[in-house]
């Protein structure tokens, strides 16, 4: 992001000495903003100003990578319709080291089972947060080793006790876990530990102002692989904090908050917890730590994450394979449409409402609508005939009747010829499907 003239001007010495070759500092700032000069031309600019100007041209939120492919931060907008959200929220499930070894194993098995296939997409949980609640560094180290041996997922080591982190981190440092939390009381040791092992670290303070102070102190230790935790375990306050942090980082380029944010759920009851986590996934949390690990609880949260992080500029597509609606049989009618999700689900909804079990074949048109695809040459009779053959629908029905969208009636003759199916021109709008099927 280019710097504005005013931002540069504020960092200049305001001597108006003219030694840079421009009469005033204001004019020099404007020359820099338009790329017509170099900051080095000013002999009086301070190192601090230079640093501020350098960091102001960096992305608004730093990208923090850890564990097994988890990427946090690196976002640029407040609303996904302005561009897109890039890096889906990393979801972690917590395990306490106070549990028995057997209970830990059982929980880990459950977490490892959190893999889902749905509407052609694969979802999985990203990692495990290991909580030190035992008060015993050796116990924590042992549990971290046990969990690390039992899963490939990303790890978060969570303790405010420096000794516990020191005991547990070395054996898993190669897997680049996220560690935390650095607080006002321990930040020097914890940040230095993170620096020593090159792992990212959570900076935690109660509220925005305390967090600001702590980040600025922590940055002075010469390390910047940070993830922020604005404390307060209360959904409404957390929502406000998440919003402030994202807004200040992007709109005001406020550097101390230019890091991804992690959120922790507070509700114990799983349904309430998932509702809470949904808010954090929607509102800027780069990582969320959950207690719930039952499939039924986690799936809706993952579907929400998937939805929110799709690129709104790209049309959403359904899989271009034969779909069936209801208890299909050999007499079921066969519809063709396109794989643009808006088109497909309009047709599917109407076919379902007709209460006649049917097959629907969405042709792969790169997610464009019927008329867009037709105009772009992506809805040709040959292509439809080919898709029809590959779908295997011929073996599933004992008729050869194919219903096409009314707007492309013009392809019916050619399609009938190349496919060998009897082509029936359906209504122009899918809302006419019910009336149409009754008349058939």
């Amino acid at each position: 992001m280019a710097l504005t003239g005013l931002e540069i001007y504020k960092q200049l010495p305001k001597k108006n000495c003219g030694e840079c070759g421009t009469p005033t500092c204001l004019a020099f700032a404007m020359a820099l903003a338009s790329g017509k000069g170099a900051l080095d031309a000013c002999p009086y600019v301070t190192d601090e100003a230079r640093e501020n100007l350098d960091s102001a041209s960096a992305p608004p939120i730093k990208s923090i990578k850890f564990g097994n492919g988890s990427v946090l931060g690196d976002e640029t907008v407040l609303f996904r319709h302005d561009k897109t959200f890039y890096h889906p929220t990393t979801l972690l499930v917590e395990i306490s080291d106070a549990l028995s070894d057997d209970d830990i194993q059982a929980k880990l098995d459950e977490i490892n089972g959190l893999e889902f296939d749905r509407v052609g997409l694969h979802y999985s949980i990203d990692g495990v947060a290991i909580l030190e609640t035992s008060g015993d560094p050796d116990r924590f180290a042992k549990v971290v080793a046990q969990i690390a041996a039992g899963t490939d997922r990303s790890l978060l080591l969570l303790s405010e006790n420096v000794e516990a982190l020191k005991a547990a981190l070395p054996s898993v440092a190669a897997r680049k876990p996220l560690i935390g939390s650095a607080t006002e009381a321990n930040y020097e040791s914890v940040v230095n530990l993170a620096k020593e092992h090159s792992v990212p670290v959570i900076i935690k303070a109660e509220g925005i102002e305390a967090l600001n102070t702590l980040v600025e102190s922590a940055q002075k230790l010469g390390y910047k692989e940070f993830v922020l935790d604005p404390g307060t375990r209360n959904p409404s306050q957390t929502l406000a904090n998440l919003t402030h942090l994202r807004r200040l980082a992007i709109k005001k380029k406020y550097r101390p908050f230019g890091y991804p944010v992690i959120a922790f759920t507070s509700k114990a009851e799983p349904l309430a917890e998932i509702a809470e986590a949904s808010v954090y996934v929607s509102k800027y949390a780069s990582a969320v730590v959950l207690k719930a690990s039952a499939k039924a609880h986690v799936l809706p949260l993952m579907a929400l994450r998937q939805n929110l992080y799709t690129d709104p500029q790209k049309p959403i597509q359904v899989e271009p394979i034969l779909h069936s609606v209801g208890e299909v049989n050999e007499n079921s009618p066969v519809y063709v449409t396109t794989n643009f999700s808006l088109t497909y689900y309009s047709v599917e909804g109407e076919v379902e409402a007709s209460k006649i079990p049917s097959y629907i074949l969405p042709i792969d048109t790169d997610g464009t609508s019927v008329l867009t695809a037709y105009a772009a040459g992506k809805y040709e009779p040959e292509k439809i005939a080919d898709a029809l053959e590959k779908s295997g629908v011929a073996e599933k029905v004992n008729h050869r009747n194919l219903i096409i969208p009314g707007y492309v009636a013009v392809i019916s003759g050619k399609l009938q010829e190349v496919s060998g199916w009897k082509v029936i021109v359906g209504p122009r709008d899918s809302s006419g499907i019910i009336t149409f099927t009754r008349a058939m």
Partner: protein
Amino acid sequence: MIIIGERINGMFKDIGDALRNKDAKPIQEWALKQQEGGAHYLDVNSGPAVPKEERPAAYEWMVKVIQEVSEIPLCLDSTNYNAIEAGLKLLKRPGMINSCPAEREKIERVFPMAVQYNAAVIGLTMDNKGIPKDAENRIAFAMELVAAADEFGLPIDELFIDPLILPCNVAQEHAPEVLESIRMVKTLSNPAPKTVLGLSNVSQNALDRHLINRTYLAMAMSAGLDAAIMDANDDDLVDVAATCEILLNKSIYADSYLKVFRQR
């Protein structure tokens, strides 16, 4: 797009007479008429119809009579800052000061006053030596105004930079420079200052004034223009403003967009 209705100006005969006779009616009629046309602010200018020493009283009177009939905010237009301050004191809604050039002495008078009365400022990209020809020099003045806003604590998006459009029949080469200036103003700060034009100037003494005005408005809006002091009762012109808002994706399209624009 913020429309500042230009019609309450002592340079027009009916307003000049109204000022001389203390007849509120024409002023109030124009206030309502411009509001209906789509104006968001009303420019208020006594022009030379009132002697200098009586201007503060005249601005007080104009503000009072307009606010009797209309709720829309006012843009106090004068080079006499005492007259503007007299008006600002009576405003029921935060107004606008029209205008302040990039001259230190005037900045020191106007900016603190704007902050005190919560008013926006129209800043002119000129000094006492006149209007620069090219965009670069216009922008240098704009930058001084931006730095002044920052210095005096005027929110930068309450600063409206006017890059000063001149008549196209005698100063034709200025028009593209003004468009470039509007584009460049947006890079001066974040948030950027707003931009404004005295639109009708572009067609002064030219033929087909309405056509020139609305064509230039569309061009300027595409360059990033935020506001214009203009004829709020030129329906074709207001239609262009509404249409540009749609084509720039600033308002969500609806079939009734021309009507919706005027309702705001």
